[in-house]
């Protein structure tokens, strides 16, 4: 299958600061998440893909063409930016209609498309109000509408759920899923794993300007299991607990932290560890106050992958 986005040694520097670092990838059509903590380089990567920035080194191609200053590419992509910025003196409808006009549509067609796009994102009710009066969720929907108004083949959504309420989040998630089912290619960035997981199983993980891994959720979890997980247990009888953990459970490292009254372990097999620990916890004489793991956070995922590299 032909790639819609192709990057070769793609690098972007802001002076001496690295935005994107030597990224090589081929993204086939479909819905994909771009995951990374804040400052990982997601927005820079998306700006390179949408032709707003020019690579410092290497190249990026979208639909086989360089996107920088390329009207043919712009006709085929819809971009929903992260920043909460608008021509706030316009109504939502005027904003979307104007951007449809800038996409090359005649006034009547731009009007029809703007109405349809606003309806699609569920913004018809308030589309004739000034954007300045909109809530964050309304503004997110309006941004989505402008990205959809010219019916692009590739949608690039930078943190589209940021700041939305639960209903808005559900609606926008459903909208993105629906667009995916219609056959649109979508690249959606977020720093929240479950946001992206709600729309796709396919991920790209980016950190420090580099793409660390790509694949589906299972593959990425598999990668995570290659490096140890850290689990911290606050408990009584820490020396005794540590001995039993070393003897009975699959751990690769252990540390007693008397200051925090905790035992910290590293394991490559968290499933087996939790099962064995459940039995141990039920034994007499051990009092477990708290057990925490950092594995559910995106930061932990990236720390694992950086450590692996």
């Amino acid at each position, binding site marked *: 299958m032909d790639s819609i986005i192709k990057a070769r040694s793609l690098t972007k520097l*802001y002076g001496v600061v690295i*935005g994107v670092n030597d990224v090589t990838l081929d993204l086939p059509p479909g819905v994909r998440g771009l995951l990374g903590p804040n400052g990982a380089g997601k927005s*820079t990567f998306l700006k390179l893909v*949408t*032709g*707003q*920035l*020019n690579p410092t080194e290497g190249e990026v191609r979208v639909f086989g063409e360089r996107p920088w*200053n390329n*009207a*043919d590419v*712009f*006709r085929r*992509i819809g*971009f929903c*930016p992260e*920043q909460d*910025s*608008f*021509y706030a*003196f*316009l109504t939502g409808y005027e904003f979307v209609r*104007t*951007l449809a*006009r*800038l*996409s*090359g549509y005649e006034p009547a067609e731009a009007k029809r498309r703007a109405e349809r796009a606003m309806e699609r994102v569920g913004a018809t009710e308030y589309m004739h109000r000034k954007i300045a009066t909109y809530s964050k969720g309304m503004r997110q929907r309006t941004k989505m509408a*402008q990205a959809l108004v010219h019916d692009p083949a590739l949608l690039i959504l930078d943190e589209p759920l940021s700041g939305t309420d639960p209903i808005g989040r559900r609606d926008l998630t459903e909208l993105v899923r629906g667009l995916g089912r219609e056959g649109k290619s979508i690249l959606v960035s977020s720093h929240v794993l479950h946001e992206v997981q709600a729309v796709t199983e396919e991920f790209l993980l980016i950190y420090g300007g580099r793409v660390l891994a790509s694949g589906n959720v299972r593959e990425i979890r598999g990668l995570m299991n290659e490096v140890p997980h850290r689990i911290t247990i606050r408990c009584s009888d820490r020396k005794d607990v540590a001995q039993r953990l070393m003897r009975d459970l699959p751990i690769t490292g252990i540390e007693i932290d008397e200051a925090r009254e905790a035992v910290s372990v590293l394991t490559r097999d968290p499933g087996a560890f939790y099962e064995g620990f459940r039995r141990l916890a039920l034994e007499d004489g051990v009092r477990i106050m708290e057990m925490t793991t950092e594995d559910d956070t995106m930061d932990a995922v990236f720390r694992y992958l950086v450590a692996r590299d």
Partner: protein
Amino acid sequence: MGPIAWLQIRQMLGQKKFLLVFLFLAIPLFIALPIRLVDGFRQWEGSVAAGIFLYLLYPQTICMLLALLYGTSVISSEIEDKTLTYLFTRPLPRWQLIVGKYVAIVACLTPPALVSLCACWLVLGLEGGYEMLLGQMLATAGAVAAYTAIFSMIGSYFHKRPLVIGAIYAAIEILLSFIPALVSSLTVSYFLRSLAVRLVDVDLPKEMLRLLGGASLPGAAATLALMIAAALVLSSLATMRKEYLFSEQA
């Protein structure tokens, strides 16, 4: 280009900043009123003094200031508002962005400037000086058009502190325009002065006339048109080649 011009006009007319335009354009009227009360220009050389007065106020100062204010912000305002993303991800040639904004700014600034100029002329009570008024109107419209193009070019190349760089240019332009010989003829002001004086039948020494504006009327108009075209081309080239970073990226 149409939607860009429409967007720019809506933006300008909707901003409180536009009140400054009216404020600036009211200043000459407040200056003209006491001059009329003391019958100031009759003591001098009549329309010559009045012409210099109007020229210095309108094309040279107020039009330049207004063009500085709006021309330099063609790109920087979009960067500050973070709306440039919407314009730069559409299949719109970037020269259309510049030209569309330029046309809108000129269209918004020229009519109030001309109305203010005519009002000032009436307040001064310069009976019969229609040629002078026409010359001043030409120079005023030319100043808005030419300075907006030049400040748009400055704004396209220097999107950080464009106002400061524009102000430095303005100061240099004014200084150079009063240096006789070739130097003054390199300035926009020289050709604007030519527009202003060539329609007026005044009895002045040749050297004085040359200093005020030595180009013929068609020559001055053509040179200004060329200057405008060159500034817009350079401005368009800048937007096609430059990356504009938002503050967090910069």
